[in-house]
Structure formats: C-alpha cells, structure tokens
C-alpha cells in the first residue's frame, strides 16, 4: 500500500476531478433539459391533435363496442393493462 500522504494527494485529485465531473455533467443536463422542454413545447404546439390519433390497433368505440365484451376477458386484460 502506498504511503498515506500519497493516498491523500490522490484523494484530493479524485475529489476535485469528481466534483468537477458531477458539476459539469449536471450543468450539461440542465442545458439539455431546458432544450428538451422547449422541443417538447414546440412539438406539442405543432401537433396538438397528435395525442388521440396514433392508436391504429384500438377498436373504434361504437363500432365493435359490444364485441370487445366478448373477447376472452383475460386476453383483453393482458393487452389493456
């Protein structure tokens, strides 16, 4: 094992490097998240109708409303849960 003083020197380095990386990482994350939020707002504004549309596989209400009832309850439970 190396002498304690060397260990401590290395520890100080590790501390500076570690806190540095933590701060840089989280700073970039702050920037990224702000960008992400703006992007999300832009997308949401552009296609506010996007939410109901993209479910091609779900049966349309009314059409086979009665039918869904007859699908084996378990399978439908598996899919919808």
């Amino acid at each position: 094992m190396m002498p304690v003083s060397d260990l401590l020197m290395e520890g100080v380095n590790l501390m500076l490097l570690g806190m540095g990386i933590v701060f840089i990482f989280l700073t970039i994350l702050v920037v990224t998240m702000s960008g992400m939020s703006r992007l999300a707002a832009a997308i949401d504004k552009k296609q506010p109708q996007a939410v109901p549309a993209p479910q091609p596989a779900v049966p349309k209400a009314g059409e086979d409303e009665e039918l869904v009832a007859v699908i084996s309850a378990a399978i439908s439970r598996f899919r919808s849960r």
Partner: protein
Amino acid sequence: MGIANLEWGQVLMMLVGCVLIYLAAVKNFEPLLLLPIGFGAILSNIPVAGIAGPDGLLGYVYHVGIETGVFPLLIFMGVGALTDFSALIAMPQTLFLGAAAQFGIFATLLGALALNLVPGFEFSMADASAIAIIGGADGPTAIFLASRLSPDLLGAIAVAAYSYMALVPIIQPPIMKALTSEADRKVTMQQLRPVSKLEKVLFPFSVLLLCILFLPSAAPLIGMLMFGNLLREVGVVDRLSRAAQNEIINIVTIFLGLAVGSKLSADKFLTVETLGILALGALAFCIGTAAGVLMGKLMHKLTGGKVNPLIGAAGVSAVPMAARVVNRVGLEADHHNFLLMHAMGPNVAGVIGSAVAAGVLLALVGG
C-alpha cells in the same frame, strides 16, 4: 447443540441484528430494508447452520443477487418507476443543488483516507470510495458500489447508509438552521409550472444520453433508473410499470435485505473500521447537507431571492425524507410556506447526482 458452538462475536452480531430490527420496528428507521438486514444478520450468525455459507440460503442469494449487482439495479428500476421527476423537469436548475450535495461524498473520501493516519485503519482507495458513497444517501447506489469496490465492507456501508437516511430528520435541521437566517427560511417560492407528458417521456432519454456520452460507467445505474421511469411515464405498458413498482421491488427488497445481512459477520463487522465507517457516514451526511444549503444560498443570491436556500438540503437524496424535512423546517419559519414540491426537485436530482458520483468513482477507482 448450538449453545456450545456459539462464539462471542456471533452473539454480539445477533444483538446488532436485534438493534437494527428494533430501530426498524419501533423507531421506524427505513424498516423495509433494516428489518430484513437485521434478521439476515441473526440468521447468518447461527453456528453450525451455515445459512450464509456457500450452500446456505443467504449465501446463494448473496451470490446471485449482490455479487452480480443485479439486485441494486432492479431496485433502481423500481425507484425509477416509483419516482415522479416533474418537479425537477419544471426547475432543472435544482440539479445544481443535487450536484453540490455530492460534496459530502468526496469530502468523506478524503476523510476515509485520512483515517489511515490513525493506527488500526487501512482503507485502500477502493475502500474509501465505497465508504464515501454513504454520503450519496441512496441505499441501492451504496450497495452497488460497495459490491463492486469493497465487498468486505458492504455490510457496514449498507447499515450506515440506511441508518443515516432514517436519521435525516434529526441530522439535517440543526445544520439547515445554522447556515440560514430566519429571513432565508421564510422565502416563498412561486408555484411550479405544469409539466407535459411529452417532457416526462423525453426526460429519461435526455439523462441517459448524457450518461452515454460522458459517463458510461454510470450507465447500469442511470440506465435502469431511467428504464423504470420510462415504463412509468410512457403510458402504454402499465402492466410492466406496476410489476416494476410492486412485485419486483418488493421481492427484491426482501432478498436484498437478507443478503446484506449475511455480510454482517463478526470478523468483518466487529472491527474498528466499522466505527470509522459509522463516523464517516455521519460526517458525509452533515457535509452533504451543508454543501447543499450553501449552494442554495448562492442560488438565492443569483436568482434575486427566488430560491429558498433550505431546499438545498434535499439535494442529498434520501427521497422523500429529506424533502419532507425541508418542508417542516420551512413551515417552522412561516406557517404558510409549503416547500415540499420545490424540495422534490433537488431531492430527485440528488439521486441522479449520487449515481453520477458512483459512476465517477467506478471509472476512476474501479477495476
């Protein structure tokens, strides 16, 4: 007869187990973990039975779940599925508070190395790193890192981490009050903006992307945390989200606790090093809290008074205990100052922060 084979060390370790169960059951100290850990400690120290041995139940569980790192990662998946990151998304700058509080980790690292000056202590850099992570105030991160860097100390590290997490309501308030003025604590913060579903879904990808680019050694922890969170937020896989939040995390918690308990053997726990670890753990929480509050004060200044410095204390993680403590101290100063939601931001930021710190330590100290 068991009584003839009982050694004093085993008896003492069983008493340690009983103390942990007492703290869990009566004092409500993180009972989900400390109760199984305590019981595991009792079972593991029964002579002749060999329950923690290579052919014993707890020996198997430790080998399969902790040596491999699987259990802490599954807990992280469950934590991700249980955590609502809205408060952080609404106020991403609270990540700075989560970053500052990690100073507890690195200061403790130095402390652990300095302890080598005291005769009887011989902490390697890996040992010191594993001990330091207690300051992350995050149980599964601590167990994961200790299993990688210093398995012999795992028992003491896990016990210290969960114990101090439970003690957060006692440790933090004096430090918070000492570092803030009455006026500081009365600062009210404006309500958080609502967060859209799309933001919540993009969030895990944002975090994971940075992790991939800059700190891949943290990817197992961050990746599973974000996977769990995606299951929660994406909305089309409720079955899986509920499995992660309930069945998986509950089952794994039982076995993780028992398996951690199996490392509480006399020869590894009844040492002067454990005392050192306990002392360093307390130090880590204090320093982390202080660093968080001081960063809170800085943000208070820089934002022209919009940030209540108290919420910095929540940056140590210990979710959701630390955020509740912030709220309580805030209410003591002003009966109408509810800080809970604002403290949840740095609180969950602290989880990410300590996973990042663990990644740093793994990259620089590990294998």
